[in-house]
């Protein structure tokens, strides 16, 4: 469990509808929506690229995973490291810092 009260950060996909927002409000979950078309500010976007690389490697090494999609995805998720996640958070922090930097007019 998270040590602190956390904020769920998600994008504006179609499935993230108002009923999901209402569910989070009722259950006391803080949430924050990304601005439109700002996937570069979402840390998990880079994680998915790692995930797909792991999927490729697993299928390449053992094609029995083709018949076991749940096992395949579970194995791929387990290969994700905390360092990769931290790297993506660091990347987003740099993006945020650039946005907060004062604009210099040439």
């Amino acid at each position: 469990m998270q040590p602190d009260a956390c904020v769920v950060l998600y994008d504006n996909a179609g499935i993230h509808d108002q009923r999901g927002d209402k569910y989070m409000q009722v259950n006391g979950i803080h949430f924050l929506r990304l601005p439109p078309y700002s996937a570069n500010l979402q840390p998990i976007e880079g994680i998915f690229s790692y995930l797909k690389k792991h999927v490729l490697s697993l299928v390449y090494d053992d094609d029995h995973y083709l018949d076991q999609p749940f096992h395949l995805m579970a194995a791929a998720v387990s290969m994700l490291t905390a360092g990769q996640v931290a790297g993506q958070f660091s990347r987003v922090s740099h993006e945020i810092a650039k946005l907060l930097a004062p604009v210099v007019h040439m």
Partner: protein
Amino acid sequence: MPLVCCQIAVSTLEHLEACHWHVHGKIMHSGAGHSDWLSRANQNCSAVRNVPRLDSNRGRVDFRWAGSFGFGAQSKFTGPSRFPSQMQLARPSVLAPSTIRSANETVWPADSATALSAALRRQSKYHAVLISASDRHVVSCADDPLHVSLARFPSLHVTTSAREAKRGCRGGNRFVVPASCAFIVVTPPQPPLLRTSHAATAPPSYLPLIRAYRACLLSVLLPQLTRAILTLVEKEPAVFLRDHVDLLVALSLDYHESDHRYVSTAAVYRILRFHHHTRKKIERLYAERSLAAQRAFAVLYDEIPLRCVVSVDETHTAGTDMYQRYGRSQRNVACVLLDRDTRPIARTRTMMAVSLTHGVLWSQTVIVGSAQTADDWRLFLQYLHAQMNT
């Protein structure tokens, strides 16, 4: 001003007419069918003020023909202009009487390569000069080959020899060179460095020029253009994607001193791709995003401790994600490619939540037929809620 040397058939001059090119020169050998073109050109010339009609003189056809200036992207100029500001800037200089040279100046002796080069340099922009087939070697003997560019311009095949011209040209604008053809030296209405070089059809002697062209494309000329495009993409992404005309107009306004500069969409995307901004990436990331909204989000995000942020998103995994497309192998080891498996592969969707302190906080994979629904999203939130300290 760089020049373009090419060989065209007399029938191809109709394309000049269609593209509203300013043509001025002499045809020494008139081919079959030229009279039809001549009559049509006469009709067009009569419709334009201050432009003399064509006339014939002892088998030689001297002509002076000018039309309103148009850009090469349009084979026929009909309706309102797509480039209004550039049109307004370009038209006065094109139709000015001072830019029309007398026909006598376009005839060069066979051994006057230096004189030709000097004459070409004196040519005003938007001028085209036809040279007879007997004098065409003068063009290749010009003392400054760097002034002869391989820039492409509309509906004309850029070549320097009749043998290459017979191969036809790209883009479906094929034509057969007749027995009597004219050579044309054109100062294009746009800097050739912005144009695509015909590396495939260029003679070996032009390879250094092509390399110089490519080097100039990315280093010499285009910093200004690159800076303008990237600035515009960052400031006005929606305008850039929805209407390229606004981009071109903005560029022409920013660089009004070079109103002849034409920026094709291909050039724009080539520059953007060089800076890793593919069209797909731009459409996804920059189409509707607002810098103001992002800054507001950044202020909010900056106030939240990173350990408290739980990033949630979903992705799909299809069969194509599971195969090595191009193969891989270690060094000096034969590559074993996995062929397409005949077994049906379930299409899965994975929702995942990550946090800085826990890494992957929760993941949920479902097999879906087409796409996930809001019910899947709420189910995921229920499981995620149990993992969060709310």
